[in-house]
């Protein structure tokens, strides 16, 4: 790379680094035919930009060449391991809503760039600016409920899982088709389980994930006086180490009319490797795998009483930290007695996986409407 191509000096706030600057120009010979400005930026924007943007949930932005280049090796590692982008639905899986799979060609372009000298391309034309603008993803909620007070993660803690109970003050029954969350401090809200207290899970919230409404005719019943239960996983990033960081998030609920059938969305949970039988005719609308560790693959299928195998979900390289509810594009109706079978294949090598404290046993919950 040319000596004249300079990147910013980053002075980190540690005592040691106060006297040391960082220059990220590595003088790598360029072998990549893909460059950042023309080829890679659009891919990073579309697949990573909801989090990896200045002020966003991720600790580093990838939305400018200057920001992305020093992370090239990590980008390559995350992408080729399948950890990023965190969308593990296999192409052979029954379709799920709000999918944003990265294609093999796109993977290849990014890795070629990251491996081949990370060329910038035409430095005179910067890619358009990408900004972080948190918003309710499916429009203004029908009901917004904020945490009663800020929660502060003290300087000595990097990570916490906290439970919160939020009063809704509802006086009549409501039917919930979707729930979303507006983090107070996006950089520390890692994931949230939004439930009706002592009731169903309304949403599994992750930064950057879409908010999907239950299909027509399916909704969660919320009785008068119900409370919202939040399980928030806070995690500071390396820039926030030794700092107190506070959050006061807000839940948004979206109501709908009572289902015509009058039946609410319910769920049942199975603990692999043990399977489970569907108690009565049921229309499966969504699936929530919760993992104890990373897997090479996870396959969920139903075996009908007639012996027919009905695929429900196929994941490639799912990670426990990226749990979500997969809403089926086409709900699947199963006869009573159908068996749900979950098959998992461990990774061949866990040495490169981030060291996470397991939070859940391996469980798969299926959301359904009784038929």
């Amino acid at each position: 790379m040319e000596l004249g191509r300079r990147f910013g000096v980053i002075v980190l706030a540690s005592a040691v680094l106060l006297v040391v600057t960082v220059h990220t120009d590595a003088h790598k010979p360029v072998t990549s035919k893909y460059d950042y400005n023309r080829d890679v930026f659009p891919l990073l924007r579309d697949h990573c930009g909801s989090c990896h943007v200045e002020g966003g949930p991720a600790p580093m932005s990838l939305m400018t060449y200057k920001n992305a280049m020093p992370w090239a090796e990590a980008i390559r590692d995350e992408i080729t391991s399948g950890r990023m982008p965190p969308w593990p639905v296999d192409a052979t899986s029954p379709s799920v809503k709000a999918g944003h799979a990265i294609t093999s060609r796109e993977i290849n372009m990014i890795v070629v760039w990251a491996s081949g000298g990370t060329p910038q391309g035409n430095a005179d034309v910067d890619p358009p600016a990408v900004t972080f603008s948190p918003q309710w993803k499916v429009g203004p909620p029908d009901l917004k409920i904020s945490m009663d007070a800020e929660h502060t993660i003290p300087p000595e803690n990097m990570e916490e899982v906290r439970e919160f109970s939020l009063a809704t003050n509802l006086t009549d029954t409501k039917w919930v088709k979707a729930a979303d969350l507006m983090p107070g401090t996006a950089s520390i809200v890692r994931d949230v389980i939004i439930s009706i207290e002592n009731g169903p899970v309304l949403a599994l919230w992750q930064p950057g994930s879409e908010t999907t409404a239950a299909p027509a005719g399916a909704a969660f019943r919320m009785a008068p006086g119900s409370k919202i239960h939040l399980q928030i996983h806070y995690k500071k990033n390396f820039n926030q180490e030794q700092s107190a960081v506070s959050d006061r998030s807000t839940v948004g609920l979206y109501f709908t009319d009572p289902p015509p059938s009058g039946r609410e969305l319910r769920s049942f949970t199975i603990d692999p490797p043990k399977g489970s039988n569907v108690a009565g005719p049921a229309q499966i609308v969504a699936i929530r795998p919760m993992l104890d560790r990373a897997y090479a693959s996870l396959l969920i299928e139903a075996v009908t009483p007639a012996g027919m195998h009905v695929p429900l979900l196929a994941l490639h390289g799912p990670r426990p930290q990226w749990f979500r509810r997969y809403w089926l594009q086409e709900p699947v109706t199963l006869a009573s007695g159908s068996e749900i079978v979950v098959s998992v294949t461990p990774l061949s090598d866990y040495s490169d996986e981030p060291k996470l404290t397991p939070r859940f046993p391996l469980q798969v919950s299926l959301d359904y409407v009784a038929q």
Partner: protein
Amino acid sequence: MKQALAIFLMSWAILGFSREPAQQGVLRTEHTFRGKVEKVDAAARTLTVNGENVPGWMAPMTMTYRVDKTQKLAVKPGDRIIAKVYDGDFVTLHDVRLDTTKPAAPNDLPPLSYVCTTPGEEGVLEDKPGKCPQSGLSLVPIRLATAYSCLKVQTVIQDKPGVCPVDRSALVPITAALYFTCRNDSTVRELEPGTCADGSARIKGFERRSHGDHNPRHGGQFFMADDNWHHLEGTLIRPNIFRVYFYDDFTRPLAITGFSATVAKTDANGKPIATPIAVKAGRTRDRNTLEAAIPGTTLPANFTFRVKFKPDDKERQFDFAFADYSKEPVAGPRPQPPVAVPATPAPAPAPNVPPTPITGGDNSTATTVASDDGLPTTTTELLGELAKRAESVTTVMQKGDLSAVWYPAIGAKDVALALEQNHVNELPEAERPKLASAVRRLTLAAWRIDSAGDLGNRELLLPLYRDFSAAVADIQMIYGTR
């Protein structure tokens, strides 16, 4: 491309490091050596010297040198000396004399080295001012130093070991260019300490240098440890000496201080067939080797080498395979310094022909962009090409040439991508998601093979090879050729 680079750099490496240049009548490059004498052995005519960095010749290290025979050893421990040294001879000091220049203080700066900054000439490194060989521009002075950085992220470089703030892993050593800048004006870039316009002292800055090549210097098999710093070349010397050479990330000889290792004979599948043997410091001139005699060795021979770089370090495994005894490269005219890989990918590898053993590049340097240009255009031809390249992967794996397996793997990935991009519509609609899934798995596996091959660990490669092979088989099944 990696192959082209490998061949070019191999020739450079061979020519530059193989023999005593003077004995061969080949032009040799002189360097100036400085260091502090630690021990004098008059009888053996050797000096143990804590040497400073000599760009293009040797990294800073303490080692024992022969003294030029015409020289009287009029030095004592503690003296600072200056001497002449030559390419290709890493153990002899010529014209040794006392260094009467100002004694080096502990904070002395690394000496100046000279590099080209023009694209395509990034690999040029000299210890004297001059011109870049291709562009003719003046060489640019820099100071090469060992700095410490996060393994996967380039946002942190500092002058001392420490912990990466991003992932809490230990910082790893890297070769960097040291310069001095101002806290309030990052455009300042000087080679000396000094004072900034605002009166404050200049602060150190480090610029990461490009990674060295991965070409063997002694006809062996070349791998890189997962810290990207330690590099090693395993050789099998007739009749039964297993020897490993160590290098830093600039492919300069690296002292084996604190290293401990064992080697065990294995079968072709990597299973031990003999008790591990402790390896000891070799007597090679660079003092950067570990070796062990392994009686009864027959060809082809396979060895698993396990090494710790520090007593409390983790043990790393490297699997070497030798179809023949290692042969020291033959010297020739002094080559040009290495140059960058051209931006246009090289043609696809020839079917069933593994690349030249030991390839240049690694995860962090000029690497790996095998070609997707020049591929055949029809589905039948592409499937044939896929089969050939997959077979080549199998062949290379069976030979144990782990550092070469990336090439056909990346090539097969390119064929699969071409199939998906240009020929998916020839499949029934129900088959298309299967192809997308298989191509994705193949793409990921190929890139992981590219990374793992550099590390030389068969156990890491085997599951990736299985994923790769399964994806290839799925593609062939989808197209009905299996």
